[in-house]
């Protein structure tokens, strides 16, 4: 189970070494075109500094930057206990030694991604659109996929690859631009003699500067695609239910809602490429394999082990994907039956959760309408949008009065007698409106405003 990561690491190490080599060579060329042979060491130093600065930025706050840019809010267990249960289940199944934090993004496009260069700041991000669209099995598949990105250290790898790629692009830009505008240094060297060698180096530099970033990009995208397949394989193995992840991928790619916060730089992190509207961008420059191909492999699995994934992949493409070392250590696994439970939350509930996470205050009116007031709202009341009643905002009114508006929890229980079988609402002594649904059958209810128990008969 762990050897496949090792085989993957070897290939990635080759890529990283190649990229570092390209970077140093480009640095040498920059130094050479600027200051002649004496500048080579200087150029290498400059290349390392460019790379080091970028790496520093990524390590210091890439997660915070990304999460902040996406307006992601961290969820507490109370916000969505079932989502936390699913994440904990997948943590146990994957054997990950830490529990990633969970972030919610208020976006109608269903998608998810994982971030984290170290355990302490690793997080799994889901959108509200994902939570109400997927049923429990599908959501579990998505979380398992993201968990295996964390477990296989894909996030660290992709970060490092992105940093190196960025540095290579910067250096090659420098070379290409110096060639175009900085003809003075070339004139000088030609007048000094030895112009032929210098010219050859310049041509080589130009070719290398153009091809280097291209090759680096192609290779890192190829690695990224492979890691997506491997995360799918792990996801199927953790959940023992490949159909769940397959169905989730289908729903995500068919939703056809563009992700509003995704950019070119963050696209490789998502479970399905957020920039390709139909998730079908194929070819050498794709960060993700075509979703249809991933679904086909998952649907073709006859078991839930790595061997089953490899067999299905072989059937779909004619090649294997998982290294022989890992297949040898693979345990046979059968597919479990479907859990057949629906979505863990409704569209409305998840919207309310997102509002709560963004510190909105829900103000209930006696007419049944609910208004979400943003945290920065300074007036002490609003008018109900449906019936026009003036409503106080509890938190603001409290702050203005200087005393807590809630009654002690030990107040004597009140009683309310139901008058009809349908929807019903009444007002607690503290002013809080309480609604009873037609299916409400418990003998008592706790007032959310003042915590006192109200007997219902």
């Amino acid at each position, binding site marked *: 189970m762990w050897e496949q990561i090792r085989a993957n690491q070897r290939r990635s190490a080759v890529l990283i070494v190649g990229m570092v080599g390209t970077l140093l060579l480009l640095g040498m060329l920059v130094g050479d075109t600027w200051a002649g042979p004496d500048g080579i060491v200087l150029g290498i130093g400059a290349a390392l500094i460019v790379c080091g600065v970028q790496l520093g930025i990524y390590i210091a706050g890439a997660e915070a930057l990304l999460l902040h840019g996406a307006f992601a809010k961290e969820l507490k267990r109370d916000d969505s*206990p079932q989502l936390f*249960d699913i994440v904990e289940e997948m943590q146990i*199944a994957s*054997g990950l030694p830490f529990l990633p934090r969970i972030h919610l993004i208020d976006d109608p496009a269903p998608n998810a991604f994982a971030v984290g260069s170290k355990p302490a700041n690793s997080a799994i991000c889901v959108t509200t659109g994902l939570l109400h669209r997927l049923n429990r099995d599908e959501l579990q598949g998505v979380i398992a996929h993201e968990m295996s990105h964390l477990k296989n250290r894909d996030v660290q790898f992709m970060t490092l690859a992105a940093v190196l790629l960025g540095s290579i692009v910067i250096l090659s830009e420098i070379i290409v631009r110096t060639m175009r505008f900085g003809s003075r240094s070339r004139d000088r060297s030609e007048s000094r003699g030895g112009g032929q060698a210098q010219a050859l180096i310049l041509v080589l530099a130009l070719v290398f500067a153009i091809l280097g970033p291209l090759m680096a990009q192609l290779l890192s995208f190829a690695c990224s695609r492979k890691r997506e397949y491997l995360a799918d394989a792990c996801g199927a193995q953790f959940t023992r239910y490949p159909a769940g992840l397959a169905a989730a991928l289908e729903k995500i790619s068919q939703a056809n809602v563009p992700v509003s916060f995704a950019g070119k730089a963050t696209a490789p992190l998502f479970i399905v490429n957020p920039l390709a509207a139909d998730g079908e961008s194929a070819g050498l420059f794709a960060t993700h394999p075509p979703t249809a191909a991933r679904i086909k492999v998952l649907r073709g699995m006859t078991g839930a082990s790595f061997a089953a994934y490899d067999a299905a992949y072989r059937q779909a493409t004619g090649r294997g994907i998982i290294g022989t070392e890992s297949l040898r*250590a693979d345990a046979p696994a059968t597919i479990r039956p479907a859990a057949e439970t629906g979505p863990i939350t409704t569209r409305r509930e998840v919207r309310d959760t997102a509002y709560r996470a963004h510190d909105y205050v829900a103000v209930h009116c006696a007419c049944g309408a609910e208004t979400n007031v943003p945290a920065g709202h300074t007036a002490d009341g609003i008018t109900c949008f449906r019936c026009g009643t003036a409503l106080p905002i509890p938190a603001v009114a409290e702050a203005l009065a200087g005393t807590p508006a809630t009654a002690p929890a030990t107040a004597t229980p009140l009683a309310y007698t139901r008058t009809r079988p349908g929807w019903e609402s009444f007002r607690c002594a503290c002013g809080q409106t309480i609604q009873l649904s037609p299916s409400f*059958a418990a003998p008592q209810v706790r007032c959310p405003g003042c915590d006192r128990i109200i007997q219902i008969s």
Partner: protein
Amino acid sequence: MPIVIALVVLLVIALGFVGWIAGAYNGLIRLRNQLENAWAQIDVQLKRRCDLIPNLVETVKGYAAHERGTLEAVIQARNMAVAAKGVADRAQADNVLSGALKSLFAVAEAYPNLKADQTFLALQEELTSTENKVAFARQFYNDSVMSYNTQIEIFPRNVIAGMFHFTRREFFEVKDDAQRNAPPVKF
């Protein structure tokens, strides 16, 4: 001079051999630790389930006191699970408890008041999730046992495993086929 070269070559070979032994030993230790962690995780989840059951029984008693048989079966299964020692025993007791809980939740279907009780709903949700966690912990444990057992049996690691007394571990599974194929109860 040739003697020196021969000595150096021998030394390099010896160092390589020692290095390989150290690497293989460390690999086995890592696998065994992972296995023990996985077992601890099963233990945590099973204990958690046993802790939730007295509360559940009390809540159900309030609404359906005359379902004595079902309630007693759950309590008995819980006590057995708490007392069980060893991997195979634990697995067996755990499975009996799962069955008893399923029938308890099936019984609860007949009591609308019980089904609307907030405490009961919270407990049911928590127990269902704990049940899932037990299943996943068991799955991870069994995968770990599988790869550990393979590692200590294949040549040449089996020599090192024998030298340092790495022994085979049991799988956490139920022998009874009827119980394994029990149909899932839906709520």
